[in-house]
């Protein structure tokens, strides 16, 4: 126990050390978080009337962001599978980053749900024994369970491994491997359950399609890894951590397959709805063409579709997949494309037209955007902190010193533009 305490103390010492850039970044995030907190205080004081949500569209930007972040958390298993099922070394070296993404994304998910509640102070009603968790009846209860489980699972795996590396010993894989393997079905379950949350509502034809859960999974395997590739580029340019090109290209290849499945399932759904042409077609017409003069989402969803298709080809063709510029463009396209498609593009057409045929066109208010900005900043702050600890440990720059008590810190700056990378770029230009 004393050792754990020493480790935690060491981590806090480490967190306080960093370059000017590191501090600027942290303060920037803290500023955004402050703005978010103030916006949330405003929402608490006035009620959810400060959002654009109303009885017809009773979920909006918060739940859209929540849904998207559940997808991002999937990033972890796309690394865990090649690393620990196929024992592929280039990805095994970076698999822990996936778990850290999952931890940060899960915290964001829980925050997004919390700010959406009308009575957040009653959250304890959800805790079994003290309150009443309507399990297994309510899919929201399932979601509470699996999201928290997935958070704890990833935090424990990453925490245990880093703790052992800090004390310069190999983690006992007898404990870790089962947990890692369990994290694969756990990741699938968070998507499935979140999809079922919508899927189970017969009142909303747009969601009440059995293809929803598979589509969720497919798009999650695009957005999470795409975000991660972008982060890898930043990490290897600004920290000492080395990430091999082949690992990144392999992930990009996996995105291509996932995106193909995503687009195929979308096509299957579009065909079924348009060809059968029942009363249930209305939300899809609203989304893709506009209905009765209401067309707020049309330009967004076509942007998303165009982005996703473009990115699919960029990742499919080896030349563009293995070119830094087109690779990064592809990742940005996927991230934005899925953000629209799995966020507002999924949630809002569930409510428009509403169950009695009415139209209320929703677009988020400033308060909603500021609160969401605050949550994104919180997620990034947590992720930065986790990286600040994990990267030096993985590089051997942060471990217990020879006295067995005090930490040894070899990487005092953390965020610095790396010279060798600059040279490499120079070489590329010369060629």
């Amino acid at each position, binding site marked *: 126990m004393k050792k754990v305490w020493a480790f935690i103390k060491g981590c806090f010492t480490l967190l306080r050390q960093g370059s000017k850039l590191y501090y600027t970044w942290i303060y920037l995030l803290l500023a955004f978080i402050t703005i978010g907190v103030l916006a949330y205080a405003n929402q608490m004081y006035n009620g959810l009337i400060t959002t654009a949500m109303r009885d017809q569209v*009773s979920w909006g930007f918060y739940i859209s962001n929540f849904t998207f972040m559940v997808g991002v958390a999937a990033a972890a298993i796309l690394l865990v599978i090649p690393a620990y099922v196929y024992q592929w070394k280039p990805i095994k070296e970076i698999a822990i980053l996936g778990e850290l993404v999952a931890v940060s994304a899960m915290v964001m998910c829980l925050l997004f749900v919390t700010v*959406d509640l009308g009575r957040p102070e009653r959250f304890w009603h959800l805790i079994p024994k003290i309150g009443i968790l*309507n399990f297994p009846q*309510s899919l929201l209860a399932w979601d509470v369970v699996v999201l928290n489980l997935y958070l704890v699972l990833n935090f424990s795996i990453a925490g245990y491994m880093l703790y052992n590396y800090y004390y310069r010993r190999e983690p006992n894989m007898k404990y870790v491997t089962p947990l890692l393997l369990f994290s694969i079905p756990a990741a699938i379950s968070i998507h499935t359950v979140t999809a079922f949350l919508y899927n189970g509502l*017969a009142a909303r034809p747009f969601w009440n399609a059995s293809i929803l859960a598979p589509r969720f999974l497919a798009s999650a395997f695009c957005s999470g890894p795409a975000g991660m590739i972008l982060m890898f580029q930043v990490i290897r340019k600004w920290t000492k951590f080395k990430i091999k090109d082949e690992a990144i290209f392999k992930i990009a290849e996996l995105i291509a397959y996932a995106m193909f499945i995503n687009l195929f399932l979308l096509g299957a759904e579009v065909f079924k709805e348009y060809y059968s042409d029942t009363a249930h077609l209305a939300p899809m017409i609203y989304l893709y063409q506009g209905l009765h003069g209401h067309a707020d989402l049309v330009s967004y969803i076509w942007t998303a579709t165009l982005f996703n298709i473009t990115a699919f080809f960029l990742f499919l063709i080896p030349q563009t997949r293995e070119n830094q510029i087109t690779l990064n463009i592809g990742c940005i396209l996927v991230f934005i494309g899925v953000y629209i498609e799995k966020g507002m593009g999924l949630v809002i057409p569930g409510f428009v037209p509403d169950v*009695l*045929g009415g139209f209320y066109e929703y677009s988020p208010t400033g308060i909603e955007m500021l609160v969401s900005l605050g949550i994104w900043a919180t997620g990034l702050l947590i992720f930065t902190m986790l990286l600040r600890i994990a990267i030096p440990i993985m590089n051997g720059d942060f471990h217990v010193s020879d006295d067995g008590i005090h930490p040894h810190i070899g990487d005092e700056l953390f965020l610095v533009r790396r010279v060798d990378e600059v040279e490499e770029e120079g070489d590329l230009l010369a060629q």
Partner: protein
Amino acid sequence: MPDKETRDERVFRLTRRKALKGLAAGLGALALPKKDASAAVWESFFQKNFRELSRAEIQDVVSRLEKEYSTRYGKPVKVKTSPPMEGVLYGYGLDLSRCIGCRRCVYGCVGENNQSRDPQIHWITVLRLDKERGVDLEHAERYYNPANVPEEGHFYMPVQCQQCENPPCTKVCPVQATWKENDGIVVVDYNWCIGCRYCMAACPYGARHFNWKKPGLPAGEMNPDTHYLGNRPRPVGVVEKCIFCMQRTREADGKYPACVEVCPVGARKFGNLLDPQNEIRFVIENKRVFILKEDLNTQPKFYYFYSV
């Protein structure tokens, strides 16, 4: 020596008082109540789900609420907890051939059930439909506003909670804050609802409404005859819905729901489905009846019919 002892004791007392004061201030800040910071705030915060309260605890809750509402609205407010009556299952009939779309039911309901006036919350939505198209919700208009009703070529369909026998809204609630009572009325415990609005997404009839803002209910218009699970004043951030005026219908000297009473053309029928002699049974057995969105298997106890 005694001097030092008393001094020590005083110091101890002072620090203890300070600590207690600090603690109280901290807890007060946590709860964020304004001037009326008192035991009542904590009692309501830690209140259990209504269905888990003992009879004595219900008494406490009711007297606390009655006190709170009576002070707030400046008149004696009654909060009833009358349970469902034995052998009663409520059913509702709505005669589409009579309804003229005047919306008196909408406002009769608002007055009886203490809905928010600012912003307006209506438990009943009246839809204007085209006679040519029939019951086609995709072409329904809820914001019609002519000088006179009924309008040529249109008919009207009021929609409110259908009190489903198989309600999709109650099973999705993550904390069991909403349930179906034995007389078929679907209720919400406003002190237990966390405001996640999953039930609103699940309801196929748009019957659930959310208090997006602190309800604006002028004291003069407040109806002091209330039920805990029904028309008592609602807090901000919770869901509410039609409860078949249980503060009227569940009493021994029972009255019809306000919407039935106020309807000028007698389009609304209400009664006990288990009583073969009841008017509602006559309607079901002898008229052309339909239920809304039958394919969803929600099994509404709200029957639309045509008498002519």
